């Protein structure tokens, strides 16, 4: 299923784009295993057709959205920096649509404060889900204002092609100012909530993975000194920018918050 006509997007960076062989060969998709080459080797077993997203919780119009409906939203190109919590980064041309388009369709109620996402749970197709490496199914969440931000997209393709399975086919979140683990892959469920939920990584190691997970060169991870990053594949090591360089667009979302505490 190829997304239809694609408009040149807003917010795109003109930095050199990462080689697609690297972006599709070096993946964190723990459902298939912890190694970077597990997803490219194993993700072909994931069935993405048919696909739908179950929307529930604090919405006026809950229900199942078939992928076809989502692909009929106006799609645009977004060339974004992607900064992983593991201190590497890529520049990826995504195709997708603002998450706000979907939320506008399902109409969050006045009580909705958070948007939670869930990845497919299918241990027969995703071998690492048979272990307890993480609390499956993988869950991530955004505050509603973060979710409605025009930078936040649901991607349906990359490099002008439909998303490869290892990159989160057929539908994934992309939140470019947050560490990559927030950009949840292969989404099957979206829930609008009153209370802040706990993400899968946050549940596993709350001291290491915060709810906000904004890219922040001043907040260290126990294993990764976040002041610098390796720009794959050959951009060398560069300094990490606050909010991954998207501060002009998103810093206002966090005004008055201590980002050392709310990491």
């Amino acid at each position, binding site marked *: 299923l190829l997304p239809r006509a694609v408009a040149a997007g807003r917010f795109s960076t003109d930095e050199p784009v990462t080689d697609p062989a690297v972006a599709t060969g070096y993946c964190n998709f723990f459902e298939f295993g912890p190694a*970077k080459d597990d997803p490219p080797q194993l993700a072909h077993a994931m069935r993405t057709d048919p696909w739908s997203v179950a929307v529930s919780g604090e919405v006026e119009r809950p229900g199942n959205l078939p992928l076809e409906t989502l692909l009929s939203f106006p799609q645009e190109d977004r060339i974004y920096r992607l900064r992983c919590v593991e201190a590497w980064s890529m520049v990826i041309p995504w195709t997708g649509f603002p998450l706000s388009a979907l939320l506008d369709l399902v109409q969050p109620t006045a009580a909705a404060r958070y948007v939670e996402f869930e990845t497919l749970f299918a241990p027969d197709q995703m071998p690492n889900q048979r272990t307890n*490496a993480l609390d499956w199914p993988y869950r991530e969440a955004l505050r509603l204002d973060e979710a409605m931000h025009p930078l936040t997209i649901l991607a349906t393709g990359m490099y002008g092609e439909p998303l490869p399975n290892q990159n989160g086919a057929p539908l994934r979140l992309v939140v470019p100012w947050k560490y990559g683990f927030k950009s949840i892959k292969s989404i099957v469920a979206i829930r609008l909530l009153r209370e802040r939920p706990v993400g899968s990584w946050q549940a596993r190691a709350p001291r290491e993975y915060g709810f906000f997970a904004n890219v922040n060169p001043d907040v260290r991870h*126990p294993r990764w000194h976040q002041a*610098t990053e*390796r720009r*794959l*594949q050959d951009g060398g*090591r560069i300094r990490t920018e606050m909010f991954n360089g998207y501060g002009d667009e998103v810093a206002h979302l966090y005004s008055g918050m201590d980002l050392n505490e709310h990491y």
Partner: protein
Amino acid sequence: MISPRLVRCLAWTGSALPGLLILGRWQVGLLGVVPTEALLHQTGRLALFFLMASLAVGFLHFLSGWNPIVAARRPLGVWCFLYALAHLLIWLILDQGHPAFAWAEARMMRHVQLGLAAFLLLAPLALSSSDRALRWLTHPVWRRLHLLVWPAAALALGHAWAVSRFENPRVMVMAALLVMLAMSRIGWTLAHRLRNTR
């Protein structure tokens, strides 16, 4: 009949093989799409493996009473250092790329400090690994100096623990092995002393 010389030769060449294999795989592009990371991790694992292997020699000698095995210890130890040196240089040059970045990481990150400390303890052992150094230091001093391998191993395992995420069980197995080796060594030394004082 397997002579110590044959054991030594086999240990020297056998220990070089995994390194050569990595070099070969690197050259033909078999290290994946981000070879720097593969080089970093694989040399680190090799250094740790050879560190544990060199420590295990004494234990195996004690168990088997087979003397020629002792000849494997020096090659294993020297190769442990060479793999650790490669690991350090890959981190410094290929991964960090700039002394300022490396310094910032070394100043702030526990796992870097543990790894560097382990390396600094191993360096004098590698430098004093020749027969000449042993004669110059005299045997009692040399033996005391080489007890540094134990704290070096503990630090190296701490480093491995701090950088691992899903490999923690493997590091724990190695830590248990290290404790077992250290206990057997202490027990053996005590028994030896007791026998000598009687």
